[in-house]
């Protein structure tokens, strides 16, 4: 969690310094969700992510250097600089890709889960999406399809209360998004998304259920982004009281206090870890900034997968 927190802080710095184009959507405040959920996964499992995806990547085990290289548009990035912050894919880490279309990856995750099962693997696929994404038609189609296909997929709705400037209360007329699972015939669970242990526990259950072949689960993790929507959309109209309320419930602080009380770690040790995280992040960012930019001559590569018709001059 500390690593994610440090990564996003650095990313915002790099954006301010114009090393990052487009935008950055910090995961700050929601770290417990990615960490709790990905902790319940094993090698061979997959995830899909969103515009706010750095946290998912780090929790799934991606490396910081090619991540920073990607979001700063370098040839050494996971996607050779083609994707950027909103499109990090890392197949070797089971990261199917981040999607800048809100809720766009839910059907992909369902199909990946079904396909892996068809290929004889007992892998589970997790799809992260936001509270705003739950109003997209594809959420409905993917959830129902996953149910009738018994696809081993877990839908994780990160309800951070806001979609840019729109509070969830104005986007839906129900208290919990999780209840929609009942309309598809699989369990929906609400969990405190700022409590990493609680998230982990719910995720274990859902992943276990999927792996058993009992089908999907919808997890709604209630949380909050304590930073503005994005680097490109910094205006934040939310009340200071609301922000303070959630800062007090900061998942990192809470887990830290828990560890100290449990005698597992000391304040000093936590300080130490946070400092190390910042060092790792600085080192990775430095690596990225020293990396070369993609060669313009390669701009037309990878539009199509190799095929015998793919000979120069033949492409329409």
């Amino acid at each position, binding site marked *: 969690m500390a690593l994610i927190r440090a990564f996003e802080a650095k990313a915002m710095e790099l954006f301010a310094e114009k090393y990052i184009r487009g935008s950055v959507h910090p995961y700050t405040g929601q770290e417990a969700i990615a960490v709790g959920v990905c902790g319940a996964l094993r090698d061979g499992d997959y995830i899909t992510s969103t515009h706010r995806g750095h946290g998912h990547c780090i929790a799934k085990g991606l490396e910081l250097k090619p991540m920073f290289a990607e979001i700063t548009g370098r040839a050494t990035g996971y996607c050779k600089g083609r*994707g950027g912050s909103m499109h990090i894919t890392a197949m070797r880490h089971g990261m199917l890709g981040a999607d800048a*279309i809100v809720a766009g990856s839910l059907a992909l995750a*369902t199909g990946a889960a079904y*396909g892996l099962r068809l*290929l004889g693997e007992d892998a589970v696929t997790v799809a992260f999406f936001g509270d705003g994404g739950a109003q997209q038609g594809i959420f409905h189609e993917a959830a129902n399809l996953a149910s009738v296909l018994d696809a081993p997929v877990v839908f994780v709705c990160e309800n951070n209360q806001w979609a840019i400037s729109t509070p969830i209360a104005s986007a839906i007329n129900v208290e919990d998004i999780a209840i929609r699972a009942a309309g598809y015939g699989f369990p929906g669970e609400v969990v405190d998304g700022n409590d990493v242990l609680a998230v982990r526990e719910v995720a274990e259950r859902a992943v276990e259920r999927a792996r058993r072949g009992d089908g999907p689960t919808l997890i709604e993790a209630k949380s909050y982004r304590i930073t503005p929507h994005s680097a490109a959309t910094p205006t934040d109209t939310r009340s200071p009281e609301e922000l303070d309320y959630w800062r007090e419930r900061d998942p990192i602080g809470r887990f830290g206090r828990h560890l100290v009380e449990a005698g597992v770690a000391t304040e000093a040790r936590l300080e130490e870890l946070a400092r190390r995280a910042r060092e790792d992040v600085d080192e990775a960012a430095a690596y990225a900034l020293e990396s070369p930019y993609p060669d313009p001559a390669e701009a037309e590569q990878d539009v199509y997968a190799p095929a015998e018709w793919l000979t120069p001059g033949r492409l329409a």
Partner: protein
Amino acid sequence: MSTVAVRELTMADALNEALREEMELDASIFVIGEDIATHGGLFRVTAGLLDDFGPKRVIDSPISEAGISGAGIGAALVGCRPVVELQIFDFVTLTMDQLVNHAAKWRYMSGGQVSVPLVVRGPISSGIGMAAQHSQTLEAWFVHTPGLVVIMPSTAYDAKGLLKSAIRDDNPVVFLEKRLLYARKSKVPEGEYLVPIGSADVKREGTDVTVVAAGQSVHLSLQAARQLARDGIELEVVDPRTLKPLDMDTIAESVTKTGRLIVVNEGPRAGGFASEVVARTLDHVGLSAFRAAPVRVTARDTPIPYAASLEREVLPSLEDVLAAVGRVMQG
């Protein structure tokens, strides 16, 4: 004399054979769509597959075009080769986001880490009174989408060979089948053969006018060619078969020979495939190669009406092709 037995097959049966043969070869292939399993598809293209390959690989889906397309993409990302049927291709409007923002871009956005070996196929059903929401010819949209392959066969032979190639290809393929051609028969040899993606076929040789046409329009053009041959005008009918990538070499070669180009296409004229062929051919052969301005024979810029008297009027007709030939022959 060839030792291979050759049968006459309908395009529907040829497509069915292609699916069957490929599914036998490759267990990662599954087909999904509305009413394709127990019912065998509204036009029988998937008939019998359920019995032979079972419900895990031949799936009757809920009515969720975006959902099944997206699921196809996800399955393709992890190594399957899904074939998604859209019951009528007009419904692709419901899944443009999955096809355009996802299938077509995922490989590029990932820097080449992944490929999306997906086929999305279904009928174009204009000409039979299905009205505006069931009669569209939308290939131009996909031709305009980098990352997609677009195929439109005109014969049973091409359909089988192209569908097999499409399934084996590692890229997302939009495979368009003309409803009125399903029942049309042509010679199809027994056993394995492929038709390469991106290669046109000269369906009729001629010296006077090059007619570029795919799918149903090929037969309209051949009909015009037979009729004009009596008056000594020889049309060369070039069937691109694949609309993206487009085999410009074959088209350019033909136009260089004839100096005249007509493009026949069933979609609306504005922004259609015919416009693209005209513009690209100009790029390739240059102005001087033309003896007359190229002519586009297309549908009118209207939705497709229901009544026969109106639908006939808006779709390209034999008369339209003949008139176009008249224009280019005058120069």
